[in-house]
């Protein structure tokens, strides 16, 4: 146990801080997604060109060939520098890296990591939410193409995306988890219709995808046929980590904003306010240390497993605690910013739903980590 930077880590941190000092935009992050998206994407592209994205990906696919500890340092310093929110799509490169052919990695990873091409995750369907293995979208092999038919939903950033990592059933006779394959689907392909869905906070953050006889080349399958479930589980395990999705710095920024609000409103906050602020700060500190521990374990090279459900529950708990705090502070209806915080609060309710609901995470912890017997079907 040694939480000091090694000499290389210290040099890395030094270079990073110097870069952030020069490059974090001074203009504030727009509240509305339609304006926030280009703002976030531009910063992410800039960050990539600076050499600060995909730190733990190999250099030949556009990464930096560093390790998880550098990812932890990045996350910490982005928060300190008050940098814009990252696009929470970092986890989508992982399956391409692990299961992609040489050609697929060369073609897709560099622009994905550079945010020049945007990806989305096409797993959920109207009939297949928590029970993902119930998905019905079909992929049928015809000569040198796969033909896709089906309906995906809750596809985050679907309206902005160029490609979708999409799960479809290739073997209708196989039971549930088997018989599912993963595909790389260009959203520009004929037969794809994207319909935005408006979130409760007004953002058009996700979409439905309709697939009508969409033909994609045979080589657009990722991994082997029937690898789909394994690939999906890998993706969600990465998605459940706070660092991969860049949420840690975002939460730190929220907390600073709330502290600033308290400070401008009163010179002597009451005990209850101090306690509530302290609790949010403690929660973030717990998240920071937990991420450090998770990443440190990962330095040995192992991809995340079911323990990532703890990270996911923690991330959700921190976000929802921050949002509860914001509501308890902004009680005065005349205060500017109240409606924006309320929108963030609404968004915070999604944390315990996407990436597998909080109940599903608990099922995983109980059965996979604690070894409790499976529930009767």
């Amino acid at each position, binding site marked *: 146990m*040694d*939480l000091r930077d090694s000499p290389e880590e210290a040099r890395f941190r030094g270079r990073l801080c110097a870069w952030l000092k020069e490059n974090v935009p001074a203009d504030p992050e727009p509240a509305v997604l339609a304006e926030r998206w280009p703002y976030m994407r531009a910063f992410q592209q800039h960050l990539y060109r600076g050499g600060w994205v995909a730190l733990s990906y190999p250099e030949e696919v556009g990464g930096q060939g560093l390790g998880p500890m550098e990812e932890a340092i990045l996350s910490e310093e982005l928060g300190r520098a008050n940098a814009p929110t990252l696009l929470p799509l970092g986890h989508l490169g992982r399956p391409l890296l692990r299961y992609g052919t040489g050609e697929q990695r060369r073609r897709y990873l560099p622009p994905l990591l550079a945010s020049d091409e945007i990806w989305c995750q096409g797993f959920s369907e109207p009939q297949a939410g928590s029970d993902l293995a119930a998905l019905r979208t079909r992929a049928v092999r015809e000569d040198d193409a796969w033909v896709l038919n089906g309906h995906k939903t809750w596809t985050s950033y679907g309206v902005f995306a160029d490609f979708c990592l999409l799960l479809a059933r290739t073997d209708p006779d196989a039971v549930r988890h088997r018989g599912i394959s993963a595909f790389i689907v260009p959203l520009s392909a004929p037969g794809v219709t994207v319909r935005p869905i408006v979130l409760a906070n007004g953002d058009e953050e996700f979409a439905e995808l309709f697939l009508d006889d969409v033909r994609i080349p045979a080589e657009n399958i990722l991994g082997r046929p029937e690898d789909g479930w394994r690939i999906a589980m890998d993706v969600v395990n990465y998605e459940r980590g706070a660092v991969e999705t860049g949420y840690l710095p975002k939460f730190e920024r929220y907390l600073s904003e709330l502290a600033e609000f308290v400070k401008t409103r009163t010179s002597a906050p009451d005990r209850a306010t101090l306690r509530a602020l302290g609790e949010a700060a403690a929660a973030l500190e*717990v998240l920071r*240390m*937990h991420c*450090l521990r998770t990443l440190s374990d990962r330095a040995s090279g192992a991809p995340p497993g079911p*323990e990532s459900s703890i990270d996911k529950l*923690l991330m959700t708990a921190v976000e929802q605690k921050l949002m509860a705090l914001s509501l308890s502070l902004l009680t005065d209806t005349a205060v500017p910013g109240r409606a924006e915080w309320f929108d963030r609060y609404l968004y915070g309710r999604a944390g315990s739903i996407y990436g597998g609901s909080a109940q599903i995470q608990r099922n995983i912890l109980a059965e996979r980590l*604690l070894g409790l017997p499976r*529930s009767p079907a």
Partner: protein
Amino acid sequence: MHFALSEDQRVLQRTTDEICAQLFAVSPVGDARADGGALRAKLWSKLAELDLVGLLVPEHQGGAGGSLTDACVVAEALGRHIAPVPYVGTAIAAAALLRFGDGPDESLARLCRGDAYSVLLDGGLDDPAGTATVAFDWVDGALGVALSPDGRATVHDLVDVDPITDVDPLHRLARVRPVPAGEASGDGARRARAVAWTGAAALLTGLADGALRQSVDYAREREQYDRPIGSFQAVKHLCADMLFDVETSRSITYGASWAAEHAPIDEAERVASAAKAHAGAAAIRVCETGIQVLGGIGVTQEHDAHLRLRCAHLHHAAFGNSDAPLVLLAGRLLEKV
């Protein structure tokens, strides 16, 4: 940067676990623990013999020259077994006060040999401002340590000792003749407080971990409606929540075990505060949930679940409750913006 425990620390963990398991069979009865006297003395002398009481004391002062992380590994294991020894009070809080607060050298040496030193707190188990009146983790014959108004750790003979019947019969408190005490303002005293917070967090994490293990074992064995209760989702989710609390407590506590000793004082205090506040609240939740999973037997004196919950409440209250750390964190945040 790396987070994991070292091989030596894993050995330390196993050793402490094994000693406790031998002395306090996992049988659900408080007998061995509640009898106090003999077994407490036996475990304590074993810990002293293995140099585990003096882990925080540098070698040149007669100690084992270990790290706070080492001491937390021991405290966690002791918590897991609800071991009735004054480890947090003597080996962590008093040792840290003597070491970082410039206490007399010969006291440190005696502490390492197994003499008990209670930290002196106020009636609310908080850092005393003005006078200290309560000996925390008191045992017969203990001496008291307090931060005197000049900012140095001072050792006191305890006079007019009056044991208090408080919530935890295994970690005792005693009212003593008041001694003058100052607030932790100097760097050394602040670090000592951060160390005490972290040590309490480690014990609390262990208490919670023990409750989790007990609950999971029970949920696998105990059958109702012809199946193990652990196959009911309502019970599973209780266990999953316990696991969440235990693992997050572990993350922040071990992070603090490094920071409280090595980081600049402001950061040390920040991380230790979070550890104390989080592990305290989490341990109480987990010990309560553990009782729920056990059902009726959990609320009897025939099971040790109540001792675990008692111990969790006492250590959550120690060194200023969750209030002091939370207010400190809020203060830091407000200074920064």
